[in-house]
């Protein structure tokens, strides 16, 4: 018996059918819902940052009242020696530890992906530890280790600590990238008499580069932001920016912290097009 096709009906194969009009409506509503959700998502993400920047121009010291527009805090920031020192320490630690961790992490990733060796599972396990272990546990362990070997706490100890946890993150990211590239190209290169060194730099490394950059950026952010581990392994004179800001909590945070955060944001905003440009260059090659 023929049944008229209505908006939603069962066809003979049991699939539900929707009229074009109904389908369009559903698509549109879904589209609006998703856009709305995305907008809310971005709002929650960026509204606090926007407020942070906004209140760096606030005349009042307290971020809860807007009393007028002023550059005072930026001026104060430039005269704030302690904050400047903290920022300088942060940048030294972050750049150095990122560089070292990226190199080691990449080597670990390549080694793990390419070679099999007896201790491989054990190494894999240890690699995951810094990620799983709570920061505070790692911080205390590092501090105790440093004092056991009699190492003086300072920027050096912070860098070592940061490298320690960053290697894992870089290794995992690069390894993921490594697993996704085609091993045949490397094979082909070896077939054409390239030795391992040449093969790596000419064939594998360019393919890995996006992953390495991603790993490096991740390590950079983790290192710059780090509070708990840095606090415990820092020594006199080696306060980093997060530690300094956190220490201000008791006596009140001034908009100088807003100002320095806004400047950091500006710096990273300028960095992003730069890295994109580099990546694009790499791709066309």
């Amino acid at each position: 018996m023929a049944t008229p096709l209505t908006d939603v009906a069962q066809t003979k194969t049991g699939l539900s059918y929707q009229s074009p009009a109904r389908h369009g409506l559903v698509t549109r509503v879904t589209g609006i819902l998703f856009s709305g959700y995305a907008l809310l998502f971005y709002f929650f993400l960026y509204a606090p940052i926007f407020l942070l920047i906004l209140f760096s121009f606030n005349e009042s010291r307290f971020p809860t009242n807007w009393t007028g527009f002023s550059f005072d805090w930026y001026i104060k920031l430039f005269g704030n020696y302690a904050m400047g020192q903290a920022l300088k320490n942060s940048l030294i630690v972050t750049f150095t530890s990122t560089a070292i961790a990226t190199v080691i992490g990449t080597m670990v990733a390549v080694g793990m992906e390419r070679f099999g060796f007896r201790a491989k599972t054990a190494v894999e396990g240890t690699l995951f530890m810094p990620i799983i272990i709570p920061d505070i546990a790692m911080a205390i362990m590092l501090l105790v280790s440093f004092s056991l070997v009699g190492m003086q706490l300072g920027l050096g100890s912070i860098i070592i600590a940061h490298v320690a946890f960053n290697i894992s993150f870089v290794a995992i990211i690069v390894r993921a990238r490594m697993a996704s590239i085609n091993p045949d190209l490397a094979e082909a290169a070896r077939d054409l008499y390239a030795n391992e060194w040449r093969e790596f730099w000419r064939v594998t490394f360019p393919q890995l580069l996006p992953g390495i950059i991603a790993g490096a950026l991740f390590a950079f952010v983790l290192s710059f932001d780090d509070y708990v581990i840095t606090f415990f392994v820092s020594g006199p004179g080696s306060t980093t920016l997060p530690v300094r800001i956190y220490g201000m909590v008791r006596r009140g945070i001034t908009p100088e912290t807003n100002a320095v955060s806004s400047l950091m944001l500006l710096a990273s905003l300028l960095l992003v097009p730069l890295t994109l440009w580099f990546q694009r260059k790499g791709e066309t090659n």
Partner: protein
Amino acid sequence: MNRLGKLGIVLLVALFAVGCASTSDGDTADDGAGDSDAQQILNLYNWSEYVDPDLLVAFEEETGIKVVEDTFGSNEDLLGKLQGGATGYDVIVPSDYMVDIMIQEGLLAKMDHSLLTTLGDLDPAWTDPPFDPGMEHCMPYFWGTTGIGFSWADWDEAPDSWANIFDPELAAEFDGQISFLDDMRETIGAALIYLGYSLNSVNEAELQEAKDVILAVKPFLSSFDSDNFEDTLLTEETKLVMGWSGDVFTAQLENEDIDFVIPSEGAAKWMDNLCIPADAGADPVRNANAHLFLDFMNRPDIAAQNTNWVWFGSPNKSAESMINPDILSYPAIYPPPEVFEKLEWFVNVGEATELYSRIWTEISTE
């Protein structure tokens, strides 16, 4: 080992060497001991904004010792670092109860009174605290009280009784606009004082009573807040806060209506101290420098200048003539004798800490 591995190792070692070399340039702290040609350095580990920076410069000009200041945010952070084995700090600034703990842990060096010339300038009320009898270890630095922060916009007379926040009838007037300290000893202690007991009671029945008092007014609280109570006063999110004197005064800078009162039933007094960590005390040069600093900070003119900058109460009697009269006449910082008598120290309750902890958990979770 293949070439890749070998080259990798060389690279690694090279980078590490570079890293270590560059960090010793970035490291401004040298302990300076035995290094008579290089500038001597004193590492101060202090609360944020708790010393007039001009004074650190003045100290350097007078003694040639440069002061490098780092900051921490809580006593527990300080303790954690020292317990973990951090060395290099020459002067630290723990609070009363933390001094007690640190002495027991052996983390503090003894203060050599023979190296100090300004001890006589201290007010005798502060020279024999229970956590450091006879000032064997630490030099009193600043003191303050816990009390009630409020705004004159809401009151004709200062709300100088704990009843304003512990009596449900009175608290109900400010429903949702009251905050207590998120601190087990402080809040339970305040309730104990309100009930007429000692701040340091270890009597379970009294503690249960205190707990009941707090739970009775808990519905009227907006939060337990130790960090932002002065901010919430400014935004009028709260009208009555249990808080520390110094923090409320910071808010007062923004809004003159905001004030602090020490309740007439009594309150907790606290003291921050300049102390010398054990490792600094063991080194003769660092020890000598630290004592110089302690002595310097306790000089009446220096203490006065510091007080005028920090706006907390100074334990230095001789400094009073040079302290800003606004501070001296302010009962919230320098209370009159009859209120001063009622102030109590926090004393380490030892094994009863577990009892306090349990009661606090019950308060927090109910």
